[in-house]
């Protein structure tokens, strides 16, 4: 019996010791959540439709190309929505079938009807493209946030196409947001005509009908520029749809200055893109080339010579330059993002929360201590020791798992004290009952612990069920609360049954006959 007690004591001390080692010193080992540390919390949605639309557009263009080459005519070939397109008035049905089988039918289902065919993206492929888009957006944002130099950011998928981004310690929300959400699609396209003062005037020149491979894009809004330098684009331009190279083919992007000492982004191209760019520029000398970012013409320069692998984007401010380098380096986003939710917590609010959380914890602990000592006298000390062990293990596990403490997490911590003594109350009340029945002290204690154990298991499991769904439901702070409750419950099962029993045995162990129990 005594040997058994010694082992129990060693195990208890080991667990408590390890826990203290895990969380000491507290301010270094325990991560504080955004609500305590201050920072920016963003929830954004990846517009996966963008990626689907891009896929459909590409397919339509490919099909148009094949049909034109095969000499097939049609009256209409256009997008219905992001996931489907329609072709009507086809001159040669079997040629269309051949072309569409080659170009579209691995991805789209073809349904005939009303003088044509409708192609709809296969559902599993749509889902797959959606998932890929979200994953790609996630990694892109991750790279951008890392470039921004934020310590311990959280970038996580949050069900469906929603992403959660938490940037502790960041106060410049506007910059963070624009950095994260600029799609940064960089393209180099030939400029056909422009600038025009408005979109209408551009279209008028073409009698409102552009050739299918051209489109009108706006330029940068700011005017200005130095004579002789590549013009920062203003107004509207008619540009080719096809891009010679894209931002994904950049090898590097760096901050720099142009020949007029203005901020400019210098970039170099990857090898095969450079080759293509070289051939393209040598055959188009004298024509204007537009650098297009996110469907805006950033600048237009006349191709003077064969350009192989480097270039620059100029006519931008210093801050724009810094942001552009970050976004270009991290690559383009596969789809645009919309913000669903934004929360900024100033550092002072966080400090207030920490202060009130700590005060509430101390007051809660104090109240419990007084309560247990008055009601259970010396046995109350036992319960308090078990409770303190519970809290130590809770903190230790939280620090060890690397889990974040939030304000609701502190609330969970405080509630754990209240719910934690419940187990002790249950056991002690049972011991009292057994004593009332005239049993010996030691037998009563044993009976108290063993009879209540199953009850404790049931109550803990039912509480864990609620905590699990709470975790599933919540984000950030609420998850912190659910986790604290869960770990607290598990630690409590250990301390209230194992540790508390050990303490009783330790006190009563040496004595042969125990006359009375202070309970």
């Amino acid at each position: 019996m005594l040997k058994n007690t010694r082992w129990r004591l060693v195990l208890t001390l080991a667990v408590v010791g390890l826990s203290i080692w895990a969380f000491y010193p507290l301010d270094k080992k325990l991560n504080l959540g955004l609500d305590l540390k201050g920072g920016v919390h963003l929830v954004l949605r990846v517009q996966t439709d963008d990626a689907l639309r891009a896929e459909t557009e590409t397919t339509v263009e490919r099909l148009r190309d094949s049909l034109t080459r095969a000499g097939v005519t049609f009256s209409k070939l256009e997008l219905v929505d992001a996931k489907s397109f329609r072709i009507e008035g086809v001159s040669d049905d079997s040629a269309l079938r051949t072309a569409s089988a080659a170009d579209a039918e691995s991805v789209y289902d073809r349904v005939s009807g009303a003088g044509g065919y409708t192609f709809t993206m296969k559902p599993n492929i749509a889902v797959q493209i959606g998932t890929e888009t979200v994953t790609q957006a996630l990694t892109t944002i991750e790279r951008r946030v890392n470039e921004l130099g934020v310590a311990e950011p959280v970038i996580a998928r949050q069900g469906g196409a929603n992403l959660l981004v938490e940037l502790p310690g960041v106060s410049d929300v506007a910059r963070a947001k624009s950095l994260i959400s600029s799609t940064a699609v960089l393209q180099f396209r030939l400029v056909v005509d422009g600038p025009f003062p408005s979109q209408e005037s551009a279209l008028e020149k073409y009698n409102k009908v552009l050739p299918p491979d051209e489109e009108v894009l706006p330029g940068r809004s700011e005017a200005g520029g130095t004579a002789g330098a590549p013009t920062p684009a203003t107004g509207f331009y008619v540009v080719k749809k096809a891009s010679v190279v894209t931002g994904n083919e950049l090898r590097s992007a760096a901050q720099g200055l142009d020949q007029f000492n203005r901020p400019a982004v210098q970039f170099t191209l990857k090898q095969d893109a450079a080759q293509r760019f070289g051939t393209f520029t040598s055959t188009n000398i004298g024509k204007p080339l537009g650098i297009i970012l996110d469907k805006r013409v950033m600048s237009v320069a006349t191709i003077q010579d064969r350009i192989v692998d480097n270039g620059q984007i100029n006519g931008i401010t210093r801050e724009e330059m810094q942001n552009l380098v970050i976004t270009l380096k991290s690559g383009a986003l596969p789809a645009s993002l919309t913000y669903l939710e934004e929360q900024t917590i100033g550092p002072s609010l966080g400090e207030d929360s920490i202060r009130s959380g700590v005060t509430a914890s101390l007051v809660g602990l104090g109240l419990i201590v007084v309560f247990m000592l008055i009601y259970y006298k010396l046995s109350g000390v036992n319960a308090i020791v078990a409770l303190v062990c519970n809290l130590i293990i809770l903190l230790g596990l939280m620090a060890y798992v690397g889990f974040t403490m939030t304000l609701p997490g502190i609330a969970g911590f405080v509630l754990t004290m209240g719910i934690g003594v419940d187990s002790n109350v249950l056991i002690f009340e049972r011991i009292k009952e057994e004593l009332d029945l005239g049993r010996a002290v030691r037998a009563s204690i044993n009976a108290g612990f063993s009879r209540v154990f199953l009850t404790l298991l049931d109550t803990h499991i039912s509480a864990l069920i609620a905590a699990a769904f709470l975790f599933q439901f919540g984000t950030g702070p609420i998850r912190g609360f659910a986790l604290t409750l869960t770990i607290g419950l598990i630690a409590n099962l250990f301390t209230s049954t194992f540790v508390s029993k050990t303490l009783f045995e330790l006190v009563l162990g040496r004595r042969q006959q125990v006359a009375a129990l202070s309970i």
Partner: protein
Amino acid sequence: MRLFKNTNYNFLRWRWHAVALSWVVILAGVVYIATKGLPMGIEFSGGTGVVAQFDREPSVEDVRGALNRHYQFGGQDAIVQSYGEPGSRQVMIRVPQVGAEQGADLAKVSGAIEEALHQEPSLGNATIVGRQIVGPSVGEELTRKGFWAFALSLVFILAYTAFRFQLSFAVGAVVATLHDILVTLAFLAFFQYDMTLNVIAAILTVTGYSTNDTIVIFDRVRENLRSRRRESMNDVINLSINQTLGRTVLTAGATLLTAIALYVFGGEVLRGFSFTMIVGIITGTYSSVFVAAAIVTFWNRAQKRPSAAVTTAPTEASVQKQGRKPRRARAS
């Protein structure tokens, strides 16, 4: 010290009163919510909320006035309340959403509020120390997720208690829990606390806590049913509630103490949370004693089947004929 030593209250005799009282509270809550509404926190309603720090004590009236005069989207729907501890010179301002509030526009409104405050020199210098902007689609999603979290946790608790006890007990536990959720909602409406994420978290915690309490009583009922096969279900339930009464009240008291500590000292953010916990703990304890057991007896009567304990083997039961006499100790 000993509270409730060897009590013998007839709790089941009061079950009809309890049912009536619960219905009164719940219906009053429904009426209250139907007429005055349950105020929704920003997470559910969408919109913009900012916490502004002033360099001298601001009056809520002045801030409201400044918004009425200068806030470009119309300040009459703004909710202004002082925030944080007294003397912290902080004010919380909430305004409904303007337009779509997506993408880059998301921050427009909070900028407009800041501007409106700066245009009122009498307010002194104001800085925005915290802001929260929630788009319109977030609330719906939260409501859906919250509903499922409640529904599934109730189903799982039902399944678990049915597995560990019997179906009537499981129904009792779940009805009691549902009762606690409704009563808590009623009180949230009476005191007009905002429905926030934290409040939802507190209600889910109450769900677990309330079941916890009920299970302790049921556990004792199960134990007593084994040793007192001759007694009626009602007597056994009454006895079990009495036997565990000390524990029930003590635990509620201890948890209540910590919840009160949170309410008083936990700061503004946790106010609604701790209020919900306080109400939930009280109603959870009440329902464990008065509602859960009553449901078990109603259910058993409705099934027209005497409880399992009474029908089983009379040979064993005759051993413990003496009824209330102390149960024989079982070696453990």
